[in-house]
């Protein structure tokens, strides 16, 4: 049976390849007629009559021949080829239509695919944990740390008494560690609870999880290694299990390998995971009695929502809150949120906005393709009628239209894929580093298919419509008989495109203005020609604050001797980035003359920096009251401090800050006031110190003094005011440092570039949304142009009649342009209303510009009116120039 089928298929295949000669069929049919003639003659007819009879009996030779052809396998393919040829000819005849459709499709598909490939990783990526949507991050937040964390002293209380979770676990953060044996290597180690992997639902790729004994203090030293380390160091040798390696000079046994896709819930790089081995009792004594900071995660019980879990945890939180010192007890809040939310932070908002923008672009693209096809369909009504009259079946006409739609969609999709790949690379290149997973975003095949399908549907639906209606005989005559429903649909589509692009434009303009404000704002300090120098020192070579201080002071002296360096300042942190490391204090911890500066329980934080006198000189931060630090004060045994204007106004509303003495509260573990007493010598102007977009925070500057060597550490930045170009100074700086310590790496940066980088994120958002808005506007304008040009062409004859009856050219212009203006006004008004309704979503991204900024909307309206009117006037002018005689002869 199967053999039969195969042989039948082979026969068909043979005939598919081998075309029978048309002459053979002719011969065969001719033979038949001759035989019939002969038979007739034998029956006694005259030769002439016999042949005539035979031909009559035979019927249509042509028809028979065609039917024989149709039997051939692959005949159907031939008609497809015919349709394709026909479509291609049509496209060549109408290049504007073709190019417009292709560009629209490519842009729509390309932009959608590229953006979706980016946001898919952010919004819809599944985390590499079993049932990842049941996992939450649980902890405390407060004004100095807005990402929830946990305290060892509270954790065990919560873990033992909680009800909403099936299990709770924690990690103790990652830290640098090294394999200290043959081939030493720097790695990232993470300490985790024993039930960390089981709670996340991660099982080791090889080996086993930690046992409870291994998580006890002084338990057996064991570790799990990452898949990456297993590959790079052991070449995936399964014999790695139970091997002993030296980590930071301790012998540790490898008991397992983490799965390839493993990642820490907070996304830290991790090569080695070890049991935290906490001494639970000690958590109530270390770190002022509140325990080590840790990060807790939990798995929700089935049916428990995050909100329910939060309210169930509230009593436990309130119970443990009593252990926090009263001064800042009320600053702490409970936080329970999904791990995904914790990972993505505000990337969420941006991702949703981008997704919305890109769907708007896809919508415009679809509307555009639909209205273009609809216009073309209407214009071809006559052609379809002719073909139908010549014998083309309905099915054939529909297939023809579908072939065209499919050809365009396929070509557009191919171009769209190329465009998507290019766009994606551009996105990755210009993206700020803060957007998680962006760097490894890849084109998503599913979404390419989705976008292609949508466009194909649009094209097919609107392309088929004219073919579905039986072409009316009147269409043959060529009288203007446009089906009004289609024309109305096209107008609605164009108005919708204009409306959507107004929404996009408004959003983009708001972001552009916000970005402009961000870039142009006064930082309160000079960033041009300021070099930063950071020297990360190895703590093993510099074991004490004294060692750090000695080295940094020698570097300072060496730098000051360099030509072209006008001043050298030192600080332990730099504005304006709020996310880079900097010191901080609670406002309530500041004491003036031994008394609290503010009523207890007052919230608020203060930025703290330790600087040298030249800090103010290099950054050109003016001292507005009192004086700056002097070089002599650095080696004095007293302590000096400068307040920012904001802090001075808060602490000393009377303006009598200079000469006052302040102190900071310590907790070890209970409140004491034993720190150094600082004398206020000056008040400095405010600088941007909480990120580019945020409100300035109050700040104070401690003088970095030589009699507190214990305060010197790896947080140390040199600020250089240079009169020579960076490229000249850099090698000099490097050689100076190499002379002092050849192993010390020098990281040299330009402050203005670092500040510029802070604006990467808003620049990225603005560029993308701006790009989409322009795409949308371009497509909407093309759509508008297409419809007006079409209407003008359709009415050529009418225009001729009108002009023959005495209408002026201006009347004609008004007639045609009026159509466009109506669409622009309708679309514009609807779009503005929609923009005002949705722009609230952008609020968190805007800086110094309200979402309802009237200037923006006015600008959008003017831009739209200008561009759209141009698109209307070009075809309208063409219509105006119609010669009445020509137009009447148009038939």
């Amino acid at each position, binding site marked *: 049976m199967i053999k039969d089928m195969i042989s039948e298929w082979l026969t068909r295949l043979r005939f598919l390849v081998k075309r029978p000669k048309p002459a053979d069929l002719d011969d*065969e049919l001719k033979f038949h007629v001759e035989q019939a003639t002969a038979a007739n003659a034998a029956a006694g007819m005259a030769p002439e009559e016999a042949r005539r009879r035979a031909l009559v009996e035979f019927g249509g030779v042509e028809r028979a021949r065609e039917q024989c052809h149709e039997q051939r396998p692959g005949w159907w393919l031939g008609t497809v080829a015919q349709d394709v040829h026909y479509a291609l000819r049509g496209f060549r005849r109408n290049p504007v239509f073709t190019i417009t459709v292709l560009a629209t499709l490519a842009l729509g598909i390309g932009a959608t695919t590229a953006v979706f490939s980016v946001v898919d990783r952010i919004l819809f990526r599944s985390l590499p944990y079993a049932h990842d949507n049941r996992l939450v991050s649980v902890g405390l937040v407060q004004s100095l740390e807005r990402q929830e964390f946990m305290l060892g002293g509270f954790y065990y209380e919560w873990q033992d008494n909680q009800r909403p979770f099936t299990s709770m676990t924690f990690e103790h953060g990652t830290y640098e560690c090294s394999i200290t044996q043959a081939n030493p290597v720097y790695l990232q180690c993470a300490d985790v609870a024993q039930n960390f992997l089981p709670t996340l639902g991660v099982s080791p790729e090889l080996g086993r999880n930690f046992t409870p004994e291994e998580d006890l203090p002084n338990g057996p030293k064991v570790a799990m290694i990452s898949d990456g380390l297993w590959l790079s160091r052991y070449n995936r040798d399964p014999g790695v299990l139970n091997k002993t390696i030296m980590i930071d000079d301790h012998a540790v046994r490898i008991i397992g390998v983490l799965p390839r896709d493993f990642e820490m819930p907070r996304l830290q790089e991790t090569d080695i995971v070890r049991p935290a081995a906490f001494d639970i009792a000690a958590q109530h004594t270390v770190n002022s009695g509140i325990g080590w900071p840790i990060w807790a995660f939990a798995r929700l019980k089935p049916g428990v929502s995050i909100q329910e879990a939060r309210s169930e945890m509230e009593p436990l939180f309130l119970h443990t809150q009593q252990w926090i010192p009263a001064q800042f007890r009320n600053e702490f809040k409970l936080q329970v949120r999904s791990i995904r939310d914790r990972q993505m932070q505000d990337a969420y908002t941006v991702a949703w906005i981008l997704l919305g923008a890109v769907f708007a672009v896809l919508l415009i693209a679809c509307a555009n393709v639909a209205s273009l096809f609809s216009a073309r369909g209407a214009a071809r009504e006559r052609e379809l009628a002719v073909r139908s009259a010549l014998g083309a079946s309905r099915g054939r006409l529909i297939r023809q239209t579908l072939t065209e739609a499919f050809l365009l969609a396929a070509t557009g999709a191919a171009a769209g894929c190329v465009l998507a790949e290019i766009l994606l690379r551009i996105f990755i290149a210009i993206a700020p580093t803060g957007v998680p997973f962006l760097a490894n975003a890849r084109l998503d095949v599913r979404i390419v298919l989705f976008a292609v399908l949508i466009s194909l549907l649009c094209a097919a639906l609107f392309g088929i419509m004219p073919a579905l209606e039986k072409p009316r005989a009147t269409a043959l005559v060529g009288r203007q008989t446009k089906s009004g429903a289609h024309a109305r649909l096209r107008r609605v589509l164009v108005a919708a495109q204009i409306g959507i692009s107004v929404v996009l434009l408004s959003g983009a303009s708001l972001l552009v203005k916000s970005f402009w404000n961000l870039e142009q704002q006064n930082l309160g300090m000079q960033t041009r020609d300021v070099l930063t120098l950071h020297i990360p020192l190895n703590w093993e070579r510099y074991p004490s604050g004294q060692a750090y201080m000695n080295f940094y002071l020698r570097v300072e002296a060496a730098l000051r001797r360099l030509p072209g360096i006008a001043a050298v300042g030192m600080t332990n942190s730099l504005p304006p980035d709020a996310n880079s490391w900097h010191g901080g204090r609670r406002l309530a911890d500041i004491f003036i003359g031994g008394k609290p500066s503010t009523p207890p329980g007052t919230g608020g934080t203060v930025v703290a920096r330790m600087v040298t006198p030249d800090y103010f000189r290099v950054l050109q931060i003016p001292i507005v009251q009192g004086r700056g630090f002097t070089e002599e004060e650095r080696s004095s045994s007293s302590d000096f401090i400068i307040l920012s204007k904001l802090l001075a106004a808060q602490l000393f509303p009377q303006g009598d800050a200079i000469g006052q003495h302040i102190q900071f509260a310590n907790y070890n573990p209970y409140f004491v006031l034993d720190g150094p007493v600082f004398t206020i010598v000056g008040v400095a102007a405010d600088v941007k110190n909480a990120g580019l977009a945020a409100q300035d925070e109050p700040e104070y500057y401690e003088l970095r003094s030589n009699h507190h060597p214990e305060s010197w550490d790896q947080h140390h930045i040199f600020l250089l005011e240079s009169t020579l170009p960076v490229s000249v100074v850099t090698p000099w700086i490097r050689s100076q440092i190499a002379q002092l310590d050849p192993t010390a790496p020098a990281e040299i940066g330009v402050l203005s570039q670092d500040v510029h980088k802070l604006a990467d994120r808003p620049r990225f958002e603005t560029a993308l949304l701006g790009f989409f808005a322009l795409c949308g506007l371009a497509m909407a304008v093309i759509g508008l142009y297409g419809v007006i040009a079409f209407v003008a062409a359709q009415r050529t004859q009418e225009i001729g009649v009108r002009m023959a009856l005495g209408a002026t050219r201006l009347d004609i212009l008004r007639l045609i342009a009026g159509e466009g203006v109506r669409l622009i006004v309708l679309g514009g008004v609807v779009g503005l209303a929609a923009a005002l309704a949705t722009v609230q979503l952008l609020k968190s991204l805007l800086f110094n510009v309200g979402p309802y900024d009237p200037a923006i909307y006015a600008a959008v309206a003017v831009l739209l009116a200008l561009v759209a009117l141009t698109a209307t006037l070009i075809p309208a002018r063409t219509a105006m120039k119609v010669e009445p005689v020509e137009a009447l002869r148009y038939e």
Partner: protein
Amino acid sequence: LSNIEGSEMPPSTDLLQGTLDLLILQTLALGPMHGWGVAQRIQQVSNEVLQIGQGSLYPALHRLEYKGWIQADWGNSENNRRAKFYSLTVTGRQQLEAELDTWERLSSAIGLVLSRVPEASA
């Protein structure tokens, strides 16, 4: 062959789709034949009831050839004219038997429904 005035005869019974194929196969089972011969043969055997129009004969022959049930060779006709001769292939012979079975089952079933003794099975 005497009353060839076919056009004056009542319209021939419309053949069921697939029945024509069966008739052609059955006819060709006797030996290689050209199109004209097949048509004449069917007409004769059926006592002029079944007249095969050329419009359906040749497409059917081609269809069967494309299916591989019959094969065609050019040869000389009885009056020494170049003609296309069709003959059954092995597959075609198997197909014929299968279709004859089906046909007999079908026609006796129809006969039962029409409550008449089917003559065809006799």
